């Protein structure tokens, strides 16, 4: 129990430090690297909550591939972030208020892993038994994701597909129109 407390305290401290560093830096590459580090710490946080599948996804997608894609996209952006000249009092007040409400609400949450909490009562026992008896797969996360919630995962796959195609079409269109513009300008010259 005490070791868990120490680990959680350490992870939260690192997350806070990364968050403060993120606020202070104006260089884009530092922002990208710090976001990646934040994802890695979040993955460790998920491991302490015994959510290994989520931690795996966070580490590979959040800390891995999205960092690469950010870096690839960064080549078209200015190196430094612009200084914000607007007043920051209103955003700060909103954040403090919202954070306060969330912390206040968290006191009503059931203890983590408590068997009698509502989320473990409704449909979860059926899934746990069904994963063993009907599907025969030891990893309950996979059986929920692929079988019980197969429609949702289908939707997620289609979302990934659509998002990828949309970005490809946008980038391709841009290069084509700039090519066409060049051709048009050449025609005018000739």
């Amino acid at each position, binding site marked *: 129990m005490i070791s868990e407390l120490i680990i959680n305290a350490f992870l939260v401290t690192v997350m806070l430090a990364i968050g403060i560093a993120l606020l202070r830096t104006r260089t884009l590459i530092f922002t990208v690297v710090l976001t990646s580090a934040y994802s890695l710490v979040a993955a460790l946080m998920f491991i302490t909550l015994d959510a290994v*599948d989520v931690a795996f996804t966070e580490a590979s997608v959040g800390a891995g591939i999205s960092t690469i894609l950010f870096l690839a996209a960064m080549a078209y952006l200015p190196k430094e972030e612009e200084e914000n000249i607007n007043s920051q009092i209103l955003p700060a007040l909103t954040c403090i208020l919202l954070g306060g409400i969330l912390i206040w609400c968290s006191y009503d949450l059931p203890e983590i892993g408590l068997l009698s909490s509502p989320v473990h009562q409704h449909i979860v026992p059926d899934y746990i038994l069904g994963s063993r008896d009907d599907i025969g797969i030891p990893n309950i996360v996979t059986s929920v994701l692929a079988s019980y919630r197969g429609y949702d995962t289908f939707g997620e796959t289609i979302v990934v597909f659509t998002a990828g195609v949309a970005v490809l079409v946008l980038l391709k269109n841009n290069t084509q129109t700039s090519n066409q513009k060049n051709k048009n300008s050449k025609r005018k010259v000739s």
Partner: protein
Amino acid sequence: MNENPILRVSTKILFAPIILFGLYVQFHGDFGPGGGFQAGVIVASAFILYSIVFGVDEGKKLLPSNINLFLLALGGLLYGGVGIASMLLGEEFLSYNILGSSPQSGQHIGILLIEFGVGLTVSNVMIALFNAFVSFKSGKNK
């Protein structure tokens, strides 16, 4: 294109184990943590590493763009196809029980196939996005 010999050699050594780990995560998802999404990202990272070290043109020789786009669509089609197949066999959409000789083996086959579809789509979307971002500039300057 990177001329550093350490990077080039270690990329060549690492490439196959990364793919192997991706396949392990893909097909071991029933028993341990993992599945199509994570495996797709891991496989994509191997190809992206290759493209970063040897250049995008070499990466496109390894995985040509038309095959990349074909596999991107094939993953979603495979997922939907499993659903349609179970419908044609007289069950509801995406109900895998009918696919095998017993309901349990049907579930195993269905989950394996749809996870493979997810992996195909995710990995190829990531590779295509990386290629699109990297080649965007060259198109703009023409």
